[in-house]
């Protein structure tokens, strides 16, 4: 599968990463090389092979629905870039 600059722009938008238009040709070439390398997988017959997401095929462990963490609101807000009245501040979302 080949990748075009327009694909990279679309993916960058999905990934929320701004890309400089000047960097687009080189980035397309480099990602194209990586995708060409991983394309080797397409030749492998994997009929009937179950996908593996965990070395032990472990299931997510559940815990009792109980409060285990202490309130750290102030400590967590202290490392945020911008806060006001105990809330994280972002640019206006709704006009």
């Amino acid at each position, binding site marked *: *599968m080949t*990748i075009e600059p327009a*694909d*990279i722009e679309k*993916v*960058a*938008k*999905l*990934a*929320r*990463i*701004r*890309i400089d238009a000047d960097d687009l040709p080189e*980035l397309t070439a*480099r*990602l194209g*090389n*990586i*995708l060409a*390398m*991983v*394309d*080797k*997988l*397409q030749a*492998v017959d*994997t009929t009937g*092979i*179950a*996908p*593996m*997401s*965990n*070395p*032990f095929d*472990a299931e*997510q*462990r559940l*815990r009792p629905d109980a409060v285990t963490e202490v309130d*750290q609101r102030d*400590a*967590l807000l*202290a*490392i*945020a*870039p*911008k806060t006001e009245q105990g809330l*994280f501040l*972002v*640019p*206006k*979302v709704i006009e």
Partner: protein
Amino acid sequence: MSLHDRSLHELTIAEQLQALAAKKFSSEELTLHYLARIEKYDAQLNSYITITPELAIEAARAADAARATGTAGALAGIPLAQKDIFCTLGVRTSCASKMLDNFISPYNATVVEKFNAAGAVCLGKTNMDEFAMGSSNESSFYGPVKNPWNTDCVPGGSSGGSAAAVAAQLCAAATGTDTGGSIRQPAALCGITGLKPTYGRVSRYGMIAFASSLDQGGPMARSAEDCALLMNVMAGFDERDSTSVQRAVPDYTSVLNNSLEGLRIGLPKEYFNSGTDSGLTPEIERAVQTSIKELENLGATIKEISLPHTELAVPCYYVIAPAECSSNLSRFDGVRYGYRCTDPKDLFDLYSRSRDEGFGEEVKRRILVGTYALSAGFVDAYYRKAQQVRRLIQQDFVAAFNEVDVIAGPTTPSPAFKLGEKSSDPVTMYLEDIYTIAVNLAGLPAISLPTGFADNKPVGLQLIGNYFAEDKLLNVGHRFQQVTDWHRRTPALHKSGTGVRAA
């Protein structure tokens, strides 16, 4: 050689513990000794991002006090370094990224808690590839680390700062993390011993996530025995890590001296030049073969095996790791912590410009590859396909361990390369991890042991074990290090800026 004939940093952790117990020196003296060495040599190596002398001296005094009252923990007073991927309460935890340059962690990683509880002293946080993505330590926001054996060369990565600091004896041992070889490859390139434990053996809580189905923390030290002492503290179930394995932890030091009589070692034909065109440096192949002869002399038997899907490991990894990284790194959004761009015009601009400015080139490449592999229309062709191939790779190992106890081969195809040599082409850099990556995909433990030199630079022997066979790997490593002295070789350091040879 008696303790008095050697400087404090030349002693192993086992020897330092004996000397501390015998009051030959205090932890405060030992800690000040390492801090002085860091001051003297690290400007050239750049192995530390953050040094914490006040906290270290405070911890050393606490360890000395605990020793005086008989309440000392297992590593009381031993000066260690933490890879800057482990969260440390009140101390910057940067992951070598501009994104986290201002991040003071509000909590400790479980591994950090465990070392604190054992009385270990933390000297500081070591340099690494940004978010652990790299094999050369060149992607760090804080600049590359230099290999202590040859400062024109890379130390390997991503745990390059830990490897260089241990090799240069700027700490007694250090932690590392290994997603595709990030403990073993730098250990090999810097001539130290590094163990990547079984997936789930060491808690990942507070260890900043890269690829969650592959990441695993482990020890980097100057001998297998010292790695065993660290593993006794690091390993174990943690309910705060949902992938942590509930299984008792053995005393890893108790089996170090077991006989190797009858040990079955498998040599994968795909790992050597006689098998395929793997690009293995002939000097490394010779060094590995010589070491395997040593293991035969200790009673091991050798058998050729095959891991037929070996050449698929790198392509499989470079779908799965970026996919998981793109998901994990979505948390860095410029809202709750970390870097935020100036004057965002709207929320999309805030996200996308903070992430563009906060992440380095390699991290962004991997996020984009991963996002692509997970996007609608491609997820089956890439991600699902890679997960199927991952099982084939695992099945190769499962079949091999029916016939052998340990699999041996080189850790890397070549010795340390020059700074800048491979940084222009990501795919060339990715092939550096050809022998280490399959181990993470399968979730197995593996150790890299110093095994000689190529072009005057250290090279590593990799031993891969079955699930939870860390004790076996440490046993084989220790017996090997009883009859070889590669792990005792140390680089000649030059005092920063002066070019004066160290005593």
